[in-house]
């Protein structure tokens, strides 16, 4: 009992000191790099044209997020494509993944096909999809589906397949049928794996929607980046990259929050 408390206290102590060291050292490096960047760009007009500067990028970022159309047009366009595509990818991935993980015949029939399709690099399909679908919402959503589908599928399949054998046997001897077992044992047990898949899928989907918009679009965060590139506005490119990164991190953290809520009942050592 006592030794446990001591160990916990020590761990907490190291954790805090590590965090402080990280803030001081890591933050120090970031500040140093920003200062170097500012100094470099202040040396000539050419430098500031190519590299922009921290203060200019910051001004650009502020100007960007205080414009009404940024929220109502650009962010909305990206969010629409992402939401539509990702929900389709998740729905299809969960359904097919559960079916494939649970029914062996189906898995054996479809696995080779799915694995071969999985070999295709997603972003290389973008030019093809523009030819087939144009550059509207459908195109964006399809790119996102292609980017986000496989992580959900593969992780769900894996999670359902690895359903706890003892629980399965026990529920069967208590009279549960296969469908009942799927919903009470196999699917709940696969949650950690499913969530790992969802997070990976969301990250790939963000890359997909931004890549699709950079390649061809008429609005969206990716369009903002491509447009700023055409006008050689480095500050605006950097500002939009920051927005994209923040959006990605926020989405990931939200999903993590949902995950910890949904898997709270799960035995800690197996999470």
């Amino acid at each position, binding site marked *: 009992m006592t030794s446990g408390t001591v160990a916990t206290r020590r761990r907490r102590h190291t954790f805090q000191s*590590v965090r402080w*060291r*990280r803030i001081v*050292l*890591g*933050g*120090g*490096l*970031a500040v140093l*790099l920003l200062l170097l960047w500012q100094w470099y760009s202040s040396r000539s007009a050419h430098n500031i044209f*190519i*590299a922009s500067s921290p203060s200019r990028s910051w001004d650009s970022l502020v100007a960007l997020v205080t414009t009404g159309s940024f929220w109502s047009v650009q962010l909305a366009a990206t969010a629409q494509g992402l939401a539509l595509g990702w929900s389709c990818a998740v729905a299809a991935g969960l359904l097919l993944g559960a079916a494939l993980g649970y029914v062996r*015949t189906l898995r*054996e*029939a*479809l*696995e*080779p*096909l799915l694995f*071969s399709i999985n*070999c*295709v*690099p997603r*972003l*290389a*399909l*973008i*030019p*093809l999809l*523009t*030819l*087939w679908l144009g550059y509207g919402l459908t195109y964006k959503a399809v790119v996102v589906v292609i980017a986000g589908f496989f992580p959900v599928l593969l992780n769900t399949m894996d999670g359902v397949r690895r359903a706890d054998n003892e629980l399965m046997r026990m529920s069967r001897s208590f009279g549960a049928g296969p469908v009942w077992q799927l919903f009470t044992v196999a699917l709940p047990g696969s949650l950690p794996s499913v969530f790992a898949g969802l997070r990976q899928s969301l*990250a790939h989907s*963000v*890359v997909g929607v*931004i*890549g699709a918009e*950079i*390649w061809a679009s008429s609005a969206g965060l*990716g369009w903002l*980046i*491509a447009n*700023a*590139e055409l006008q*050689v506005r*480095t500050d605006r*490119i*950097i500002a*939009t*990259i920051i927005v*994209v*990164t923040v959006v*990605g*991190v926020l989405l990931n953290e939200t999903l993590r929050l949902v995950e910890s809520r949904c898997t709270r009942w799960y035995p800690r050592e197996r999470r």
Partner: protein
Amino acid sequence: MSASVVAATRGAGVIVVLLAGWQWAAGTGRVDPEFASSPARIGTTLWHLLSTSSFWTVQLRATAGGFAAGWSLAVVVGIVLGVAMGLVGPIRDTLEPLVMGFYATPHIALVPLLIVWFGFGFQYKLVVVFIASVFWVLLNTIAAVREADEGLVRMSRAFGATRRQVIATVVLPGARSGILVGVRLSVSHGIIGAVIGEMFSSHQGVGFLVSESAQLGLIDRLLALVVLLAAVGTGTNAALAALQDRLERWRRPDTG
């Protein structure tokens, strides 16, 4: 027939049926072959592409050059930085927030910035490939070095090994296989990174062929290139995995 043979036949059967259905639909005009292509057309185009000498001497060479340069740089930087970050706490604390920040950035969003900075030549490709592959090496190296066998470290300490000796004889040999996993994964990601980079900005290379085909509406050639890219990426990864398995055979006690 054993169960696995039945399963393999079934899996292959599904693929064959789908390809045959596609071919049939295109052949009978149920789908427009100019628009939807067909397996036979893709095959012919791929063969034609691969038997053109300029594909090898110009396009593939441009892609391979950018890949080789960016990838080797990524491996060197990834391993050196990864070992340093894995072993030395202050270095890790200093660099990790920056590394994680860049890792969290969707790399595709950086492409336009790199185009503004480096244009469309060798330098640009080098940087794109570097970014596409360095994190695989770096993060795997850090993890591998940090996961050194605690028991072995403590034992060699107890037998009087210095810190330097522990690193050279226990930590690094133990981390080798983890580092190699990162290096292996970085190859296929680097190759694909090179092509994607070229797709957005280039005047030659496999990715240039992709964007050129898109502009000319050559769907057959686009699909042929996609198939080629999938095969090269997966083939390289599988070959390297087999190679690694061979190198690491001593590790597994059951095979001696």
